[in-house]
C-alpha cells in the first residue's frame, strides 16, 4: 500500500486547486457522471435493496470517483491523487479485522457479508453532549451491557464553570477528563479492558485529541480514534496530525464520514457512491483499521427516511461485498429518547445495516443534538435486536422496514421531543422509570408483532 509518508508528500506536492474548484469542477461533475454511467437509481419502495448487482455497481462507481477525484487537503490547497492500481492494492491490503480492548474484554471486529449469519459487531454508547454529573454513570451503564463489544463515551463541553471551545485549552482539559472518566466507568462496570472506539468526541482539534491520548490518562492503542474528513472528501492538517501521531503509536484509527444527502453528493444515488468512496480515503489517507459511516439528510438530519436507509444500506453492501473491512453505521432518529417512535426508527435503521453486512451502533435520539439525550436503554435495544435478528436477509429487512416506516414517517418533520436522561432515569441507580419501562416493553411487543425478534 502507498505509505503514509508518500501521502504526506502528495499533500504538499499534489495538484493545486481552490476548494471551490474541487467541489464545482471536479467532485460534483464526477459524481453525476458515475451515477449515470453505472445506472444507479434510488427506488423509494425499496429502502433496503437485495440487489448484489446494484451494490457492485455502487462500488465500481465509488472506485472511479475516488480514482479521479482523490482527497483534497484544505491547508495546502492540493489534491492527493491515486492511480487505479494503488487503490486496488489498498483494497487488497486493507485490514479486514480490527482488534479492540485488552485481556478478557478484547474483541475482534470483522467485515461481514450481506444476509450473513454471524452476530453483528455490537457497539454501544454515544459521543453526544452529556453533562459532567452523569457522564461517569453513563459509561458504567454502557459497560454493563454484556452483549456490547465496544463502547463510545460521551463528550462534555463544560468543566465546572468553564465552557469548552474548539482549539482552546479547556478543550484539552475536557478531553483528558473524559479519557479518565471513560476508563474509570468501564472499570466500575467490571470491564476494564473494553475498547473505547470514539476518541475523542470531546475534542474537535487534533492538538486536543493528541494531548488527551497520553497513556497516563488511560488511553490505549487498542482503543479506537475517529478521524473525520470535511464534506466531501477533504481533510485538514489537524486530522493528518492525528493520523501521524496514531500511526506512530500503532493505535486503531477509524475513518468516520457523514456524507450529506442533498449536499455536493446530490441525491440518494450519489450519496451512496460517496459514502462508499470514503472507505478508499479511509484506508489510504486516514490509515484506518475500521470504518464508520453516518450519512446525514441535509434538511431533516435524521437518517431513518427511506432515501437515507437506501444510502446506508447500499453503501454497506458495496463495502461488505467488495472491500470487506470492519464497517458500521450510526443513525440519527428524529424522535427524542424514551418515545415509541424512537424505537421504531431505531429498529428500521438497525435492520437495514445489519442485513447489509455492517456492524451496528445505537441509533442516536433527537438527531443527537440534545444534551443528555442518549439513554442506556437505547444500547440494550441495539444489542437485543442485533442478537435476536441474526441471519436476517435484506429482503426480510426491507419488508419489515416498510411496515415500520408507515408508523413513523409522518412524525419525522415534527417528532416527539421525548425525555432526557435526567427526566426518565433514576440517576443514582441508573434505572429507567416505570413510564419508560412501559414504553419500552410496549415497543418491544409491537415490534415483535412485526417479526422482529429480541434476545
Amino acid at each position, binding site marked *: 500500500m502507498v505509505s503514509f509518508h508518500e501521502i504526506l508528500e502528495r499533500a504538499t506536492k499534489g495538484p493545486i486547486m481552490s*476548494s471551490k474548484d474541487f467541489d*464545482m469542477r471536479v467532485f*460534483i461533475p464526477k*459524481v*453525476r457522471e458515475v451515477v449515470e454511467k453505472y445506472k444507479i437509481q434510488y427506488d423509494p419502495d425499496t429502502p433496503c435493496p437485495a440487489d448484489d448487482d446494484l451494490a457492485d455497481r455502487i462500488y465500481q462507481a465509488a472506485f472511479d470517483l475516488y480514482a479521479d477525484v482523490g482527497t483534497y487537503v*484544505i491547508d495546502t490547497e492540493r489534491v492527493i491523487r491515486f492511480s487505479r492500481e494503488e487503490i486496488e492494492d489498498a483494497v487488497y491490503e486493507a485490514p479486514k479485522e480490527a482488534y479492540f480492548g485488552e485481556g478478557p474484554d478484547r474483541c475482534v471486529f470483522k467485515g461481514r457479508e450481506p444476509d450473513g449469519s454471524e452476530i453483528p459487531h455490537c457497539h454501544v454508547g454515544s459521543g453526544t*453532549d452529556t453533562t459532567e454529573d452523569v457522564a461517569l454513570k453513563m459509561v458504567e451503564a454502557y459497560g454493563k451491557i454484556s452483549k456490547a463489544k465496544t463502547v463510545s463515551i460521551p*463528550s462534555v*463541553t463544560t468543566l465546572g464553570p468553564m*465552557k*469548552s*471551545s*474548539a*482549539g482552546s485549552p479547556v*478543550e484539552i482539559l475536557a478531553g483528558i477528563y473524559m479519557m479518565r472518566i471513560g476508563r474509570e466507568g468501564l472499570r466500575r462496570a467490571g470491564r476494564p479492558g473494553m475498547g473505547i472506539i470514539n476518541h475523542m468526541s*470531546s*475534542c*474537535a*482539534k487534533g492538538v486536543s485529541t493528541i494531548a488527551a491520548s497520553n497513556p497516563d490518562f488511560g488511553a490505549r492503542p487498542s482503543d479506537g480514534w475517529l478521524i473525520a474528513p*470535511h*464534506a466531501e472528501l477533504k481533510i*485538514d492538517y489537524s486530522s493528518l496530525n492525528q493520523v501521524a501521531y496514531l500511526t506512530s503509536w500503532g493505535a486503531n484509527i477509524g475513518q468516520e464520514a457523514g456524507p*450529506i444527502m*442533498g*449536499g*455536493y453528493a*446530490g*441525491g440518494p444515488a*450519489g450519496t451512496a457512491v460517496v459514502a462508499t468512496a470514503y472507505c478508499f480515503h479511509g484506508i489510504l489517507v486516514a490509515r484506518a483499521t475500521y470504518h464508520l459511516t453516518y450519512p*446525514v439528510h*441535509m*434538511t431533516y*438530519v435524521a437518517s431513518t427516511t427511506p432515501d437515507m436507509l437506501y444510502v446506508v444500506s447500499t453503501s454497506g453492501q458495496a463495502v461488505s461485498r467488495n472491500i470487506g473491512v470492519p464497517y458500521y453505521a450510526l443513525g440519527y432518529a428524529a424522535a427524542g429518547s424514551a418515545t415509541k417512535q424512537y424505537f421504531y426508527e431505531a429498529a428500521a435503521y438497525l435492520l437495514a445495516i445489519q442485513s447489509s453486512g455492517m456492524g451496528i451502533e445505537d441509533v442516536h435520539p433527537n438527531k443527537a*443534538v*440534545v444534551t443528555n439525550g442518549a439513554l442506556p436503554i437505547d444500547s440494550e435495544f441495539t444489542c437485543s435486536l442485533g442478537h435476536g435478528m441474526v441471519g436476517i436477509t435484506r429482503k426480510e429487512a426491507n419488508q419489515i422496514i416498510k411496515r415500520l416506516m408507515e408508523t413513523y414517517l409522518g412524525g419525522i418533520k415534527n417528532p416527539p421531543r421525548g425525555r432526557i436522561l435526567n427526566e426518565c432515569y433514576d440517576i443514582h441507580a441508573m434505572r429507567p422509570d416505570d413510564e419508560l419501562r412501559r414504553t419500552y416493553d410496549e415497543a418491544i411487543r409491537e415490534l415483535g408483532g412485526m417479526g422482529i425478534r429480541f434476545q
Partner: protein
Amino acid sequence: MTGDEALKGIEEAIVSGDKERSSQLVEEALREIDSLTIIQRGMMPAMEMVGDRFSHGEIYLPEMLMAAEAWNEVMTLLKPKMLAAGESVAKIGTVVIGTVQTDVHEIGKNIVATLLGTAGFEVHDLGVDIPASKFIGKAEEVDADIIAASAIMTTTMTYQRDILEHLMARGLRDKYIVLVGGGVVNQKWADEIGADGYGETAADGVRVAKELLTRRKGG
C-alpha cells in the same frame, strides 16, 4: 420570439444551470428588453423556483449551485449595462455570513448563503474559520443588516456567543440582527446566547432573516 418567450427561455436556462445558454439568451433578449426586466421577470422567478424546489427536496445542492453560477454569469453581462443606465435591483437587505472560528464546515453555510442571495439579499460570504472580529468588521464595512454565523459542533458553537459579546463590547449589539444555525445549534442555544434568530434548516434561516428584517424596518 416574443418578449415573454425570451424571458421564459432565460428562466428555464437558469433553472437548468446552463451558463452558456443563459448568457446567449440574455444577449439576444437585450436587443428588445431592458436589463431590469430581464432580471425581474426572467432571472428572479428562476431563482425563486430553484429555491422552492431545493427547499422541497426536489433538487439538491449541485443543481442549486449550478443555477447560482448561471445567475452570476449573466449578472456579469448585465451589471455594466445597468450601471450605464443608472439602474439597480432593489435588495431586501445585506447579510454578512460565515462559519465561526475553528470550524471549517461550509456546506450548510453555503446553502444558506445561496438561498439568501436568491431571495434578494446582498450576501457577503466570509468563508469558514472566521473570528468574531472579522464578522463585525465586515458588517461595519458593508453596512450590513444581518450577521449570520454557522457552527456545526458543540465545541465550536461557543464562538457564536463570542460574536454577540464582541458586539456588546463595541456598543454595536442593537445595530445588527444576529442569526445562528448549524447542526448542533437549536432554539434553546440561540435564546441562551441572546441571538435574534435561529433557523433549523436553510429555508428556515432565510424565512427568519426576512421576518426579522421586516419587523426591524417596521413592516
